[in-house]
Structures are given as structure tokens and as C-alpha cells.
């Protein structure tokens, strides 16, 4: 293997003189006293290799030796990743000793001793290739498929598969023979470089299946789909994290991967504390069982921040190849972009806008495109739904990360300061936000199998009412309450009713926080029914006097169990109220 010596140090950018070949993005270890610091090759210039160190370089000296590994940054894939807490380089944080992270401490991310209940899926004589399913083990009630390693090229014949029984991850569970007659032993683990997408599918169609999140402003108004992409930009204090946690808790996914990328440590602690207690609304089991957390909080090494999102995406792709529905959340992609900016700056590259690297938007685009809905070679389907948050500087959406993301993400959930100030949560701006999926005919076809009637038409009508309400409100503000016709007040209050009942949702209420699709359908039908009516009032005071209690009743319905006695009672009161008005 190639070795080298340190020649220069600027913060965590280190120049290394080498004695042999090195590859771009190759991983090396720098020896500082007895500690091995992991680093990645960023640039090669003749004999000078520039590496970014994933740790503090304090005390590093010129002449310290460097060992190259011959491979890029890799993750180890195998059963036992669910419910673990990893750092950005896939070290198991729970295995590390002491309160503080020690630099140069790396560990094996899986459990080598644990026994797994293996069930064969392939049999001797089967033709297989990379990602073919050989068998499966039960990982927290998910069928974890043991696949032919993705890196194996060409096709193989299965020679033998282990019998059903208990095996450790390093036990051979199959032997496959290549076209030259050479046997390969397969165990339950494989490695894969994180910067390379795992492409083991036959087809990547436009995604179309609704991914239910239980959040009305998403599912009803701006739906995201299995394999879809979305992003949530917003200034601080607008509820990005609360919304993201709500989605990850409630989404109808098999696996949830959360990349806490350069954000607050106490927010990760909240997940550590809550998820083992909270129940998955779809399966009734603990949320932590289906969750993997990749934590690179804002005080952890910056270079590993970039790695953390790739680590998370690669693990997601691995589970997708098993035919599972994966939801990947990254909070926040802006911090990742900032990490890129810091390195680009140290390498003295010519800067683009706001000193970000020129290719930022290409990097973001390439990353988002790794998500998606796929058909696997065995005809099954799998998906990665990716939702990233963006923390725009100064809340200004005209900045490179937001703009770069807007080009590639198909759903846009714009969090708005003024909505948050008025405590209208989730503070997603109903006018600016969008979902492109709602325009897909495939989606419309799919939603017909779930909801009767012209659902898309109703959703569009909802948006029109909201838009009209906003326009009228501006006029009322200018002309005064009695400067506009009473009708304007009716239009305004209809949009207020839609805002309060459909868009706003209490993330901290046990019932309101999760709104199943069936219930969203019921409420939207109810509200559209009300909004389609014509009302006549004598003066503007009477309009608010009518709508305020109406809104209150509808909200009480949101807070009550669906179709419970209380719920029906509120509904009854509402019907009476509507019957008594002209």
C-alpha cells in the first residue's frame, strides 16, 4: 500500500507527500503519536496529495506518517443497523467509552456475535447477480434480505445456501460460482463506498404512491410520494425540527433514517429519549425499532458532516434493494453545504455565490437523484423518500443552497416566519409551497384507488380559496373593515376556516398530531361543503361572529377521536349551526 509523510497543515487540510499511487477520494490514516486520524483525498497535484482530516489536527507535525487504504470511504452493510446511533463515519456511538468523543476512535458498526434467524430464499442452481436475494433474516420485524454483494460483477450460479437456522454475520450463508468456475463464499456483510450510488434496479419510474405522513398540510395539500423528494426551508424558530420529527414519527415507511447533520445535539438527544418510547402508528411497535440515526451534530468534526449524509443515503439504498420503503431525513443540508464551503475555501478554489463551491448545485442535484422509487430485478419495488431541511441565511430563500435544492426537489414546504409568529403551525406557507406530484396523472390514478371522487379537484379548489382569502385580506387591510363589501369578509373567513381546520395541526396533541388519510378526506369534504355554500350577512361583524364558533367546533372535532361520540356531537352541533343560517 502507498504510504506518505505530512508536508503541510492548514486547519484540517493536510498536504501529504506520497511514494506510490493514490486515488481521488481514497481514505488514508495519519499517525499522530499513537492515534490514527482518518482522512480523505480531495486533490492530487503531482506528488502532493491534499487530504481532509475527519478530526482535529492539533499537534500534527510535518513528517508524521500516512498510510493509504486503497479504498474510498465505505460503510459496512449487514443486519443489525436498525435502532443504532452512528456518527457520520458509521461508528457506533454507543460503543464508544467516556463522556467525550476521542479522536481516532473508530469501531465496527455491527454486532459480530449476535445470532440471526436465517431463512434461505435462493436454492442451488439458481442464477444470481449482484443484489439477488439469497436469504433473509428477521431484523426488528423487517425482512432483512441477504444479497449477493453489490460489488460483484457478472452472473453466478448458486452452489449452496445455508439451511434455515441461526448464524452470525460473518458465517458463510451461501457459496456462488462465477462463469470461470471459481467459488465465492458469501456472508451477511458487504462494504460499499458512500459516494457511489447503489444501482441494482431495472427501472426507476416516476413515483406515484402517496406516502402518508398524517400531516394534513402535506398529505392533503402538498402530498409527497414513496420515492419522492422534498425540502423544508425556513428561518430559525419556524418549526423545521418539529415538522421533521412529526414526519419521521408518523410516515408510513418501513425504515426511517435520520441524518442529524450539523444541527443541535439536544435535538438528537430528544430523538434518543423519545423514539424508544413512542409507538409506530402503523405497526404498534416502538419507533426506534425501525430507525437509524446518523448523528454529526454541529460541534462534531466538520469534514465528517459531509460524509454523514452520504453514509445515510448509502444505508437507505441498501434497504431499498431489499424491497423496503425507506424514508430518509437530513437536517440540515445547509450545514453540509457549509462544510463543502469550508474545504473549498481552504483549497483556495475560486468561489461561487456566497463563497460556496461552484459545483454546489450539481452536488445537491446528484445527491437528491439517489432517492427514488425503483423496480428491482426480481420485480419487487423499493423506495427512498428523501426530505431535507434547508437553513437559509437570514431566512432569505434566494441563496445558493435553497436555489440549488429547488431545482431538484419536487416538493417544497416553505416555512414562514410570519406564520410562525402568529403561532399558525405547521408554519408552512400554503400559497408558496407546492408538490409537483399532485400534477402527475400516475398519482391521480393511484389516489383514486384510495379516495373516491375528484380529490385532486378538491385540493386545487382548497388552494384557490386560500389564495382568494389572502387577496381579500390585503384589500381589507388597506380599505378597512367597512370599506369592502360584506362578501369579501365571507371569502376571507372561509379561507380562515380552511387555514385553522385543515392547514393548522397541533403536533403536541395526542390525537390531532396524526391525521390518517381517511380522516383527512372526511375533513376536507366537510370544509369544502361549507365553503361551497353561499352565506348572506347584514354586516361584517356578523361574518366573524358566525365563523369563529364554526371554526372552534371544527377544531374540537380535530381534537376528538374520529367518529367518537364527542366527535359526532360536535358534528351535530355544526350541522345545526349551518341549518340555522340563511
Amino acid at each position, binding site marked *: 500500500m502507498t504510504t506518505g509523510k505530512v508536508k503541510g497543515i492548514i486547519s484540517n487540510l493536510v498536504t501529504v507527500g506520497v511514494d506510490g499511487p493514490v486515488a481521488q477520494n481514497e481514505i488514508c490514516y495519519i499517525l499522530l503519536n499513537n492515534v490514527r486520524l482518518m482522512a480523505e483525498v480531495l486533490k492530487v497535484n503531482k506528488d502532493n496529495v491534499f487530504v481532509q482530516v475527519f478530526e482535529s489536527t492539533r499537534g500534527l507535525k510535518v513528517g508524521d506518517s500516512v498510510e493509504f487504504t486503497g479504498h474510498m470511504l465505505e460503510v459496512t452493510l449487514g443486519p443489525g443497523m436498525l435502532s443504532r446511533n452512528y456518527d457520520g463515519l458509521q461508528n457506533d456511538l454507543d460503543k464508544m467509552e467516556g*463522556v467525550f468523543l*476521542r479522536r481516532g476512535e473508530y469501531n465496527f458498526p455491527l454486532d459480530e456475535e449476535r445470532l440471526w434467524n436465517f431463512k434461505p430464499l435462493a436454492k442451488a442452481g439458481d442464477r444470481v447477480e449482484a443484489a439477488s436475494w439469497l436469504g433473509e433474516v428477521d431484523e426488528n420485524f423487517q425482512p432483512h434480505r441477504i444479497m449477493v454483494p453489490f460489488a460483484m460483477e457478472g452472473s453466478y450460479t448458486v452452489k449452496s445456501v445455508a439451511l434455515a437456522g441461526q448464524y452470525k454475520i460473518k458465517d458463510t450463508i451461501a457459496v456462488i460460482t462465477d462463469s470461470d468456475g471459481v467459488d465465492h463464499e458469501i456472508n451477511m456483510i458487504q462494504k460499499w463506498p458512500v459516494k457511489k450510488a447503489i444501482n441494482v434496479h431495472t427501472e426507476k419510474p416516476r413515483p406515484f404512491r402517496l406516502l402518508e405522513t398524517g400531516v394534513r398540510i402535506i398529505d392533503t395539500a402538498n402530498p409527497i410520494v414513496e420515492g419522492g423528494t422534498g425540502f423544508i426551508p425556513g428561518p430559525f424558530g419556524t418549526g423545521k425540527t418539529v415538522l421533521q420529527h412529526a414526519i419521521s414519527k408518523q410516515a408510513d415507511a418501513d425504515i426511517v433514517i435520520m441524518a442529524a447533520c*450539523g444541527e443541535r*445535539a439536544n435535538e438528537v438527544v430528544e430523538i434518543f429519549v423519545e423514539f424508544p418510547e413512542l409507538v409506530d402508528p402503523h405497526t404498534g411497535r416502538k419507533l426506534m425499532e425501525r430507525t437509524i440515526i446518523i448523528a454529526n451534530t454541529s460541534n462534531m468534526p466538520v469534514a465528517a458532516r459531509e460524509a454523514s449524509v452520504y453514509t445515510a443515503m448509502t444505508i437507505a439504498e441498501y434497504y431499498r434493494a431489499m424491497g423496503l420503503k425507506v424514508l430518509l431525513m437530513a437536517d440540515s443540508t445547509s450545514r453540509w453545504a457549509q462544510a463543502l*464551503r469550508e474545504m473549498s475555501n481552504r483549497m483556495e478554489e475560486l468561489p461561487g455565490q456566497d463563497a460556496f463551491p461552484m459545483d454546489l448545485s450539481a452536488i445537491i442535484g446528484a445527491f437528491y437523484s439517489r432517492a427514488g422509487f425503483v423496480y428491482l430485478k426480481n420485480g419487487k419495488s423499493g423506495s427512498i423518500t428523501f426530505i431535507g431541511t434547508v437553513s437559509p441565511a*437570514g431566512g432569505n430563500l434566494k441563496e445558493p443552497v435553497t436555489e440549488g435544492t429547488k431545482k431538484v426537489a419536487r416538493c417544497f414546504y416553505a416555512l414562514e416566519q410570519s406564520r410562525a409568529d402568529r403561532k399558525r403551525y405547521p408554519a408552512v406557507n400554503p400559497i408558496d409551497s407546492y408538490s409537483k406530484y399532485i400534477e402527475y396523472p400516475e398519482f391521480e390514478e393511484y389516489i383514486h384507488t384510495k379516495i373516491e371522487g375528484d380529490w385532486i379537484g378538491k385540493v386545487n379548489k382548497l388552494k384557490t380559496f386560500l389564495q382568494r382569502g389572502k387577496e381579500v385580506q390585503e384589500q381589507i387591510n388597506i380599505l378597512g373593515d367597512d370599506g369592502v363589501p360584506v362578501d369579501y369578509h365571507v371569502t376571507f373567513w372561509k379561507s380562515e376556516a380552511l387555514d385553522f381546520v385543515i392547514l393548522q395541526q397541533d403536533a403536541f396533541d395526542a390525537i390531532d398530531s396524526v391525521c390518517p388519510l381517511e380522516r383527512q378526506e372526511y375533513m376536507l369534504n366537510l370544509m369544502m361543503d361549507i365553503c361551497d355554500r353561499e352565506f348572506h350577512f347584514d354586516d361584517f361583524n356578523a361574518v366573524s361572529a358566525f365563523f369563529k364558533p364554526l371554526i372552534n367546533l371544527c377544531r374540537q372535532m380535530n381534537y376528538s377521536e374520529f367518529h367518537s361520540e364527542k366527535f359526532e356531537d360536535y358534528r351535530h352541533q355544526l350541522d345545526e349551526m349551518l341549518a340555522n343560517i340563511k
Partner: protein
Amino acid sequence: MTKAFQKIYTEITAITKATCSLRATGVGNDELATVNGKLAQVVRIIGDEVTLQVFEGTEGIPTNAEVVFLGKAPSLKVSDQLAGRFFNAFGFPIDGGPEVEGEEIEIGGPSVNPVRRRQPSELIATGIAGIDLNNTLVSGQKIPFFADPDQPYNQVMANVALRAEADKIILGGMGMTNDDYLYFKSVFSNAGVLDRIISFVNTTENPPVERLLIPDMALTAAEYFAVQKNEKVLVLLTDMTLYADALAIVSNRMDQIPSKDSMPGSLYSDLAKIYEKAAQFPTGGSITIIAVTTLSGGDITHAIPDNTGYITEGQLFLRRDSDVGKVIVDPFRSLSRLKQLVQGKKTREDHPQVMNAAVRLFADAANAKTKLENGFDLTDYDQRTLDFAHDYSEKILAIDVNINTVEMLDTTWSLFQKYFKREEVNIKEALVNKYWK
């Protein structure tokens, strides 16, 4: 400080306003050195060319200056002897007392493993209702005051420090005026709490680049007491805007490409490294950080407050309420992100609802005021909200009020009763029945 076996270099090859370079070997990154007695730190090594950042500035440094490398990164000796002492940015005593004996620890140490943190859950009472009632602080939290330079943030912070039941209070003063330094000193000694206080101070009279060491010094001391002694430590950092300005100076001298508002591209990470030292440790100790970020004309979109807001767990705004002529903690713009961890759990059950109701009514008053200013007629309800807002500002929000949370809640209930009907406060029926007298 020079030891016999240390090599002395005397040939400086380049000098800028903040750095100087020389040829040297065997030097470690981040290592300290002295240049003609002035402290400096290694910031760049290219082959045998070493660049040093001279904290005091390079004025008067000759090309034949004596450079000695100290073989260690900036460090602090920690022990119980730190208590009651005043230090400069290098951790040297400035109160005339003796040097501190103890274990020498490099500052800016490693981060806490996130899985070892505990969720913050202990309330920090300050007696200020704008904080305790509306934006309750929790131990292990990090929160700044966003304030204009003319606002009394240092006084409020000194009050908070004195009333909070912390085992140690560590003051990190960056670019503090000498007057403010003396103010803190006299407040702490008058209160008789000097033995609980440790101060690291860089005043406007000291070179600005030295400031960069202050937060790490303060937090290294804090980690000693919180981790090794399991104490509750409160760290006060004022003013972080001046800290960030010093970062910008250095990055500029290092020819780095500035990003937004001339700040270095690494500003977020630099600030996060400091603020994330706030933690609730598994063994009971905690570090809570209350900082000050001064604003320019209230602009929170500037890179410094903006990045800070993304890192800290909320922010506190001070504002002069012209109706009562007092400084209040602004209930609209202030936020404590961790308040729900203690409100109604460590405080009385009605706390969250009373807080929300009062802020909502205060907002109604603000609307009524706008109506009044625009020449529209006020309804009876509008008038009552205005009267309520006046009393609420004076008896609750004003920073000179010092009462406990039960009194805050009782006072707020009494104001509700004075100006509103039961159904107007929008509080859960059961609580109204219990507390509406």
C-alpha cells in the same frame, strides 16, 4: 517560560498585521509559541515554513525576533483554586493573586458524545417573569440575548447570574469596556458571591485577537467543574458579536474568502463549537450558556445573529416598552426552545396555558394599538386588552420585577380577572375553575 533545552529561532521571513512566518521544524499544529515574549499560535505549516498568529498583533516585531515554541496548545490549569479569580485571555491572573496550581488541560477539547448527553430537565429560576414565565430556561441550555448595544443586557445578565442557583458562574468577557468589567466585579463582590465566580476577561484595552481564546478558556474551566465535580455551571459570554468580529479579522489576514457580511465561511462551525459545550452530563453536572449577541439596529438577518439563532436554543430580546417606560423581555420575539421540558412539569400545572393566554391577549393589545394609531374606533374589548397590556408590562414583563413563578402565575390570573371574562381567556375549563377566584 523559556526552558533550557528549547530551541530559539531568530529569523522571521514574513510579517503581516496579525501573523509572522519563519522556518522551523518539529512544530505541531495549533502549538503555542512566543515571539519576543508575545504569545502566538501556529495556524499554518507548509513544509518548514511555519505561520504564527500573534495574539497581541505584530506591531514592533523585528525580523530577528526570538521565537520559542512551547510544545503545547493553549491550555488552562484547572483546580478548585480557580474559584473567585479573575484571569486574562491566556488564563493568567489579573487580580494580583498567585498562579493557579492544577492539572493542565488543553482548551477547545473534544465534544461530548451525543448518546452520553441527558435531556435537560432542570429549571433555572431568574426571578424575571419575561424569562421564567414566558421563556423558561433549563440547565444545559444555550441561549443568547439579542440586544442593541445601548440596552442593559449586562445588567440583566448579572441579575440572572446572581439569582440562578448555580454552583459556579463563569464570566467570559470579550471586548468588554473597562466600565462594564468593573461593574461585574463590583456586583459580584457586593453580592458576596465572589467565591462562586470565575472570570476570563478581555477588555477593549486588550488586543482583539486575544478574544478568540476567551470562550474556550471559560468553557474548559466549566467542563472541569461540571464533569469532574458534578456541579451546575452557568457560563456568561458577552459579547459574542465582538468574538465573531475577531474571527473575521483573523480570516481576513489569512487571505480567506469571506462569505456573507464579511464573516468567515466557517462562522457557523466556530460558534457551534462554543455553544454546543452546553450540556446536561449523565453524572448530574451541567453547563448552561447565556450569551450576548449585540445587533446592529435590531437586524437579526446579519450573519452573526442569524448563525447564532440556528445554533442556540432560542433567544431573548429586550425592548423598552414606551407605555410603562421600562425595559421588558419581548414576549413575541423571545423564545426558549427547551421551555416545554419544564413548564407545567417542574412548575404549576397551569403554567403553559396561562403563559399562552397572556401572550395572546398581549398580542390583541398590540393589534388594538395599531387600530388606534390608524384612527379606527376601539371596541370595548380592545380597550380592555390595552389596559391589561399596561399592567402586564409593568407587573410581569419588566425586568426589575423579581418574583417566583407561583407569584407570576397568581398575578397573571388576577389581571385576567380584572379585565376579562372567563370565556375570553381561552384556558382549559378545569384550570379556570381552579384558579379563577
